[in-house]
């Protein structure tokens, strides 16, 4: 069993590795994509400098905490798009019947789909996250927590996209809802939770999983809390499990469109 899991993971890592190598065939485009994505992300800091000129704190966050929030969001979203970018276009695969080529391979279907493409510019997002961590106070313990929460954030974002994307097995228009919800989630992730009150705060913790993806981790990195720590890890595991169950339930309903396609 363990050997099988290890083999599947190895195949997935190789898949990601070859995706990246393929994109590196044109080094200029590769480097431009990564560097410009870092610059693109960094431009947002202007907005925060201006906001902090108006008020000393925004939603109870200082500039350093906002940078940490941004760093975690960028790193989690970036890692999710580097490793599992196909999850974000899962509805298209389902609706157009392009899952066939994954079903006939001797690999885990979900892992195979998820790791079948890589978004190169997302490497810039991930690196930007690390740059922000260094900028707002580097230490080994903070780096360890940051990397751990980047992984949980990646799991939560990917699971949320998988959950919503899998709805396309049942509803054709679910793709638009899924895209909107995921981009809405990313928008919320870049603003402090202190500005949201009442029902909106409840939604961000229990419906759109922004709270567990970044808000709790930022609070933990600012002031360590064991209960919150295990809440985040437990939530990430449960959400991914739920998303996998929904995907495999939906896969039973999948019908091919007889599209001829080959995957090497």
């Amino acid at each position: 069993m363990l050997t099988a899991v290890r083999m599947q993971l190895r195949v997935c890592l190789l898949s990601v590795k070859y995706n990246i190598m393929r994109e590196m065939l044109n080094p200029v485009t590769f480097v431009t994509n990564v560097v410009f994505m870092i610059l693109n992300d960094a431009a947002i800091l202007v907005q925060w400098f201006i906001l902090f000129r108006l008020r000393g704190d925004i939603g109870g966050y200082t500039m350093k905490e906002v940078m940490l929030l941004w760093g975690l969001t960028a790193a989690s979203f970036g890692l999710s798009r580097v490793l599992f970018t196909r999850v974000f276009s899962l509805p298209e695969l389902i609706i157009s019947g392009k899952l066939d080529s994954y079903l006939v391979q001797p690999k885990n279907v979900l892992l195979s789909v998820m790791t079948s493409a890589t978004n190169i510019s997302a490497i810039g997002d991930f690196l930007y996250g690390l740059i922000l961590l260094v900028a707002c106070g580097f230490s080994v313990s903070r780096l360890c927590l940051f990397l751990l929460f980047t992984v949980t954030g990646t799991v939560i974002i990917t699971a949320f996209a998988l959950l919503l994307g899998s709805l396309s097995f049942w509803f054709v228009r679910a793709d638009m809802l899924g895209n909107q919800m995921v981009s809405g989630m990313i928008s919320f992730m870049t603003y402090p939770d202190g500005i949201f009150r009442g029902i909106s705060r409840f939604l961000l913790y229990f419906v759109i999983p922004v709270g567990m993806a970044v808000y709790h981790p930022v609070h933990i990195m600012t002031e360590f809390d064991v209960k919150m720590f295990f809440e985040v890890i437990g939530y990430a595991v449960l959400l991914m499990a739920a998303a996998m169950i929904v995907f495999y339930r939906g896969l039973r309903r999948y019908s091919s469109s007889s599209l001829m396609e080959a995957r090497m």
Partner: protein
Amino acid sequence: MSRHTYGVSGRKYVVIYRAVLMENLQYAANIAMGFFGYFVFIFIFIKLWDYIYQTPEELIAGYTKEQMIWYVMMTEMIWFGSNTGAVARQVAADIRGGNIAYLMNKPYHYTLYILAKYTGEWSIRLPMYMLLAVAIGAAMVGAIPGFRLATVPVMILCLILGITINAVFKMCISLLSFWIEDATPFQWLYDKLILVVGTVFPIEIFPRTLQALFKLTPIYTVCYGPAKLVVDFSGEKCIEILSVQFLYLAVGCVLMFLIYRKGVRKLYVNGG
């Protein structure tokens, strides 16, 4: 080059515009699905400004809270309402994929064809987002202080000019695909400049030295100008913004034709 091959006559572009407009009417429901994204942005900014403004009478850079939120609603409305693929994705794809070889031989100028197509696309999207903005504003923010209905025609003219200037500059960036394989990263930076500096805050909120600099960029004509006229109209400001817009449009068009002319000379298509 002859008048015929350059396709200066306007009627054909009106036909293209009408065809795209009719086609996009079929997708009005799909456009409405994008309202969620707009609502999320506006919701965040309402909460943000609610937090920053400590008293209802407070002024920040000369703007009341209502004006500030309406400003963001207007700029985001322009952003979402005109965010179609024609000027960025299609131009880059046509050049990279070689489709431009077919399109450049048609009896129209390629760049004007794209602009006509783009105008047809946003002509459906923008009014829909406009209605949504007014509905959200009325329900969650309240009326714009001092708004006069009589000034709406000139605001619409300013809005159309702003969107067209933005399209011309985005097309200039896309046309760089003649030289580099992928001009998308440059589009990101341009978009981010417009988004961060132009849509989130009015220019007056920045330090004075930066204000002068931003007035020289497309931000002033694309986002700030139309939104400023909506939230704080004055005849003097209106003339200033419209003059700068016409100047920018002229310069942008010259640049666009120049880049296109240089680019097509460099074009090399492999069979197909």
